[in-house]
């Protein structure tokens, strides 16, 4: 795969002639934000705001304001409705946007995973039809990749797309798509050829989500959220012009999508705008543990100070690692899979962060008065492993790092080079009624 010629690689090319000076841009953004974006209120955190906006209606409105002001899609190419600016411009904008309400729900997966993949492999028509609408907030996207029959072994998927004249007929089921109930389109990976090894019989499609034959069910998670969905496809007709990349070469597209996903989950994507942490007196970065230590009245306790500081150090090192890996990949000094480094860092740091939060919360993590910060930490702990599972489990990242960065021997695979229909695999579940 000639990844060096993909559209998204342009983001790290030298800035185009006439690109606005960074400081001038920062000043212009600061003034524009103050005039146009609603300030964050003390009472609700960005995360709580996002939960309130279940259908993303508010987010789409906010994105439209950004779009009309010329501050949407900063790192997307101008020809598709973006601004063609650099990572540094986006970072400056994110920093400046911290005191304002931002459409954060659009960042992942729409902006940072699906749009970049479409940019890399979509046809000119597909890109012109969708990317400007994504940047303006009109379209939200998700990925239809994982299936109930398998998580880490993505290429063993069994959702079937059968060619029938000008259309493909889709049958099967997808799972773990985040926010599919409110999204408009998906990139869906399905099996189009069964008599070849698993990676060579897959095709990637653009699928309109809300249409006859597709049922979306929300899945209730341990923390009470219902963001994740499962979809069931029942003879869904997909026009052949919705194929992204080549027929039976969907794995190439999926590999790139996963690359963007690792970047997004690890925090290295140039296509996100705004952050949850906000910006306090300590620069951008989350301050929940400081708030927790204060709320529990234990900031003078040396053990508490150690834990808060450890978490702070872990967060800063994570940001420094992203800069290093991003620079390494863009200069060719690191291979593309190096994105697994900050993906694994972010996940293991999230686990540690949860452990520290639980310790700081003390008794309040078990039972609490309504609204107590400590109680939130108890509930958050229930989803401690989320970051270590989504976007390829930590174990998969460790395989990638050891095999594709360090060059160690690949794990034995019983299905290697065998036609998929001769390989033992799990069946697709039938739809619950």
């Amino acid at each position, binding site marked *: 795969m000639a990844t060096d010629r993909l559209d998204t690689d342009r983001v790290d090319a030298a800035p185009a002639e006439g690109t606005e000076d960074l400081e001038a841009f920062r000043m212009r953004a600061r003034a524009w934000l103050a005039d146009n974006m609603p300030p964050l209120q003390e009472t609700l955190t960005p995360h709580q705001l996002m939960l309130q906006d279940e259908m993303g209606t508010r987010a789409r409105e906010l994105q439209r304001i950004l779009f009309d002001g010329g501050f949407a899609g900063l790192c997307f190419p101008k020809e598709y409705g973006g601004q063609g600016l650099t990572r540094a411009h986006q970072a400056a904008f994110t920093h400046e946007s911290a005191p304002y309400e931002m459409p954060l729900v659009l960042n992942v997966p729409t902006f940072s995973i699906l749009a970049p993949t479409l940019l890399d492999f979509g046809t000119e028509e597909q890109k012109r039809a969708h990317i400007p609408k994504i940047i303006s907030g009109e379209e939200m996207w998700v990925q239809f990749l994982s299936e109930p029959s398998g998580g880490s072994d993505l290429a063993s998927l069994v959702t079937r797309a059968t060619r029938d004249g000008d259309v493909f007929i889709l049958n099967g089921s997808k799972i773990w798509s985040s926010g599919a109930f409110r999204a408009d389109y998906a990139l869906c990976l399905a099996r189009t050829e069964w008599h070849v090894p698993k990676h060579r019989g897959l095709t990637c499609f653009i699928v309109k989500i809300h249409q006859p034959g597709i049922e979306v069910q929300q899945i209730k998670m341990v923390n009470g959220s219902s963001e994740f969905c499962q979809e069931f496809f029942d003879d869904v007709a997909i026009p052949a012009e919705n194929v992204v990349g080549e027929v039976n070469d969907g794995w190439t597209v999926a590999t790139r999508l996963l690359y963007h996903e690792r970047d997004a989950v690890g925090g290295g994507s140039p296509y996100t705008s705004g952050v949850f942490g906000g910006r306090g*007196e*300590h*620069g951008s970065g989350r301050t929940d543990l*400081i708030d927790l*230590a*204060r709320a529990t*009245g*234990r*900031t*003078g*306790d*040396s053990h508490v*100070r*150690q834990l*808060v*500081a*450890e978490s*702070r*150090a*872990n967060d*800063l*090192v*994570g940001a*420094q*690692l992203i*800069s*290093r*890996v991003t*620079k*390494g990949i863009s*200069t060719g*000094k690191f291979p593309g899979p190096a994105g697994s*480094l900050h993906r*694994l*860092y972010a996940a*293991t740091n999230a686990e540690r962060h949860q452990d520290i939060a639980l310790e700081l919360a003390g008794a309040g993590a078990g039972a609490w008065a309504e609204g107590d910060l400590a109680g939130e930490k108890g509930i958050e702990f229930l989803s401690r492993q989320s970051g270590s599972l989504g976007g390829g489990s930590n*174990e998969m*990242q*460790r*395989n990638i*790092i*050891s*095999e594709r*960065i*360090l060059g*160690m*021997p690949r*794990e034995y695979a019983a299905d290697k080079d065998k036609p998929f229909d001769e390989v033992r695999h799990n069946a697709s579940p039938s739809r619950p009624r």
Partner: protein
Amino acid sequence: MDLELTEDQELFRETTAKFLERTSPLSTVREWAEKEPAGFPADWWRQGAGLGWTSLLVSEDDGGGSVSGHGLLDLVIVAEEMGRGVAPGPLLPVNVVAAALSEYGTQDQRDRYLPDLLSGEAIASWCLTEKGAPGLPSGVGLQATRRGADFVLTGRKGPVEAGAEAEFFVVAALVDGEPTQFLVDADAPGVTVTRAEGLDLVRRFAMVELDDVVLPAAAVLGEAGAGAPQIERLFELAVALECASMAGVIDRVLSFTMEYSFDRYSFGRPLASYQALKHRFADMKLWTEASLATALAAARSVDAKSERAFEFVSVAKSYIGDRAPLILQDCVQLHGGIGVTWDHDLHLYIRRVVQDRALFGTPYDHRERIAQALRLEESHGH
């Protein structure tokens, strides 16, 4: 290593690495450990000085000069390479003192002390550490009392790197309770230097006793009572160098441990083919890259005299100081029994890393500094 070295810096790195490989391979380091009292021959250090090891933090007016215009970013290249080769030499103390003179010294002080320091003829060291809060700016307690126009210093400093080799010291003390730094000649009356034990095979340390040492006002660095920002600045330089050194060590050790895992077979397979071990290597690779990243970020913040330097050096030191010894011990585990023998080189690296971790603030100490940077109230409650 910095992924954004300039061409000149890359050349400088190669020159330094080649010089170290040629003149002080590990077999030589072991030899010098036995027979060189200073840990290295004097001529070797002079050659290093010729390559620029002593002059990067000194202004051109004072006979110094950097490679890139960012002296500390050049110097951490040397520190990292010295970590890779567990090289001897008073890189840290000499450069801290050189920076102190260049940034705060009077013309007379600079004329008197800098030329020999830069040429490698003289060695000098920084006396910060005392009992109490060892290795931290907050731990300075040595009293300097006024006697007429003079100052009289009494107290004990140590461990001081290259203390027995040093011809003079920058000594951190208190005048009327306020931090103040002095230039003290090693042969001044009342100064007693005693060699100390040390974990590293070729880095030497000493204890420095000051008993009624009388110094003129001209020995004060900057102004009496105005030493606190100096001490913080020198401390940040020292920590940035330690972090680069540790990052160099783990990068090198991980690299040869990986080679070993490809070459070593058990049950008919290379160690590198076992998933249980591959995953440990993946973690160590992650921690090593994170260490290199944070060491560089710390150095950049100190080089830029950024207000974030206070926190960034402590982030780097606490992270690397925690990870590096664990990485090395896991590399011992992956080597098997050979890893705990004297003849294997692993212990040379462990000695170096443990020493870097211990001096100028442990990870615990640095996390407390981070807590201070976050303005966590030290008294309870609201």
